[in-house]
């Protein structure tokens, strides 16, 4: 018998499966019509979905608001770009990013987890801003121009190779990769370790008396989120062929939080839907006006006021009830 938290996670999986099917349909349609623009846009949406996923692990499960997740997304993007410019290997870039994220995430986690609540939010914000300014002013990292000229790579998947320049091929690679990150996160959150994170969000003060050191658990959540954000960021230069310091700026961190809140905090799958919604919205509105940030701001305010649980906060319980009914009969 699955408990309530496992059942809500299953409802998220149903919604994730729907997203995968829709994405495959989208990819097939895109390939058939010879589209590039929308496939690239969809790929970007999925990459930022990975960043939003990491924010949801912290905000929706552990109860930590990070306003500096762009630090790790940017770290992944820069590391990946640097590795690819030396050796055009997908796995080398991903491996270097994972190791880099564990190291930097552990250091950042030690600093940020000394405090809680609003102070945690401010420290994460501060750390990301400091690193962003450092990168912005470092000539070796391309300063304000970023790193340009990241080569197109062939991603070796054992049985076959996919070029990062193929719109549909790379879309499918990113889709697979982000779904794996989602599945790993979902698996982890349904283990005793993951439930401990949920306990931290629910009532951190009781947790030490259950026999756990809360700092260790929060640090572990922080590092896991850092790795997921960085691995998502590592895909960015493969898509765009460049990285810019804007990836490290607050707008990136802030958008990820907006994505999660709009999509549904504490649902995981909300991060994926939220990112697609927001990316699409930005592109559509951006084609009419350059003041699209005003519209995004209004959308966010609307979501907070009218959909306080976000899009998936409304849809998921419906799925959950269906699943429960199915299980009982």
């Amino acid at each position: 018998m699955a408990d309530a938290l496992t059942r809500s996670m299953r409802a998220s999986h149903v919604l994730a499966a729907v997203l995968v099917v829709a994405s495959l349909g989208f990819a097939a349609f895109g390939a058939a019509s010879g589209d590039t623009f929308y496939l690239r846009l969809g790929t970007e949406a999925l990459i930022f979905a990975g960043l939003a996923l990491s924010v949801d692990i912290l905000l929706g499960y552990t109860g930590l608001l990070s306003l500096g997740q762009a630090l790790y997304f940017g770290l992944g993007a820069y590391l990946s770009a640097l590795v690819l410019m030396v050796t055009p290997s997908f796995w080398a870039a991903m491996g270097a990013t994972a190791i880099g994220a564990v190291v930097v995430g552990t250091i950042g986690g030690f600093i940020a987890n000394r405090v809680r609540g609003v102070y945690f939010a401010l420290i994460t914000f501060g750390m990301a801003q400091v690193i962003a300014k450092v990168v912005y002013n470092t000539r070796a990292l391309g300063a304000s121009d970023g790193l340009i000229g990241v080569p197109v790579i062939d991603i070796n998947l054992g049985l076959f190779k996919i070029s990062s320049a193929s719109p549909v091929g790379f879309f499918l690679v990113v889709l697979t990769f982000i779904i794996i990150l989602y599945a790993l996160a979902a698996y982890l959150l349904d283990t005793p370790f993951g439930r401990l994170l949920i306990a931290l969000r629910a009532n951190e003060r009781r947790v030490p008396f259950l026999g756990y050191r809360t700092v260790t658990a929060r640090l572990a959540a922080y590092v896991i989120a850092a790795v997921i954000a960085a691995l998502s960021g590592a895909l960015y230069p493969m898509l765009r062929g460049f990285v810019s310091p804007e990836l490290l700026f607050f707008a990136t961190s802030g958008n990820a939080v907006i994505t999660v809140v709009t999509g549904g905090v504490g649902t995981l799958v909300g991060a994926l839907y939220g990112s697609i919604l927001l990316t699409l919205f930005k592109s559509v509105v951006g084609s009419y006006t350059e003041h699209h940030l005003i519209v995004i701001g209004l959308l966010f305010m609307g979501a907070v006021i009218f959909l306080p649980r976000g899009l998936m906060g409304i849809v998921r319980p419906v799925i959950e009830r269906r699943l429960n009914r199915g299980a009982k009969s």
Partner: protein
Amino acid sequence: MSASVLEVRDLSVHFGGLRAVDNVSFAIARHRITTVIGPNGAGKSTLFNLISGAVRPRAGQVLIDGVDHTGEPPHRLQAAGLARSFQITNLFFELSVAENLRLAAQILEPMAMAWRPVAASRTALARVDELLERFGLTDKAPYPVGKLSHGEQRRLEVAVALACKPKVLLLDEPTQGMSHGDTEDTAKLIKSLSSDVTILLIEHDIGLVMSLSDHVIVMHQGQKLAEGTPAEVRGNPAVQTAYFGHA
């Protein structure tokens, strides 16, 4: 192994000028119910905070099974076999009753199980069922704690503390705010627990204290005023003056 499972030696803590707990020493015997009584502000809850690691003592020692655990944080004391409940219900309100118990019981699982789905945690889940049954909460298992009555929340508070199978259980006013009937049921439950765990209790209901306790410790203004069997304490003139308010 020493006969007293929990021993406190010259324990003190000061808050500003206030001697909240002042040179308190006692030892409690295995599988007995020891109750700490005293007027409001006598230092009972602070004493619990010192023993459970919530507050660091300024002086003195806390020994569990003869091993010094003074000043250790709560999670270490839990590992040493000490668990506690709180005077003000301190649970995971948005989570279900069963999940509250499972979270408290998951420490019983080997470390490797931390990375397997919770549905595979047989030991913890069996413990949850056992506690639900024992505390009469089986029907309430799927409900969020916030939906329970006050009495049910108080009972769950004790069950969550007990879930990790501690050697010593500190219960801070488990019957606080309960109806008369609930109080009696809880007293019976606590009595039944003492066959496998040593209990240190804070309680205000004198009738309950007298019927439930094997041993009573009286605190007054941060100090231990007296200790003994319920009858001895009741007959102590100093206790009568300080606590019962008449000589």
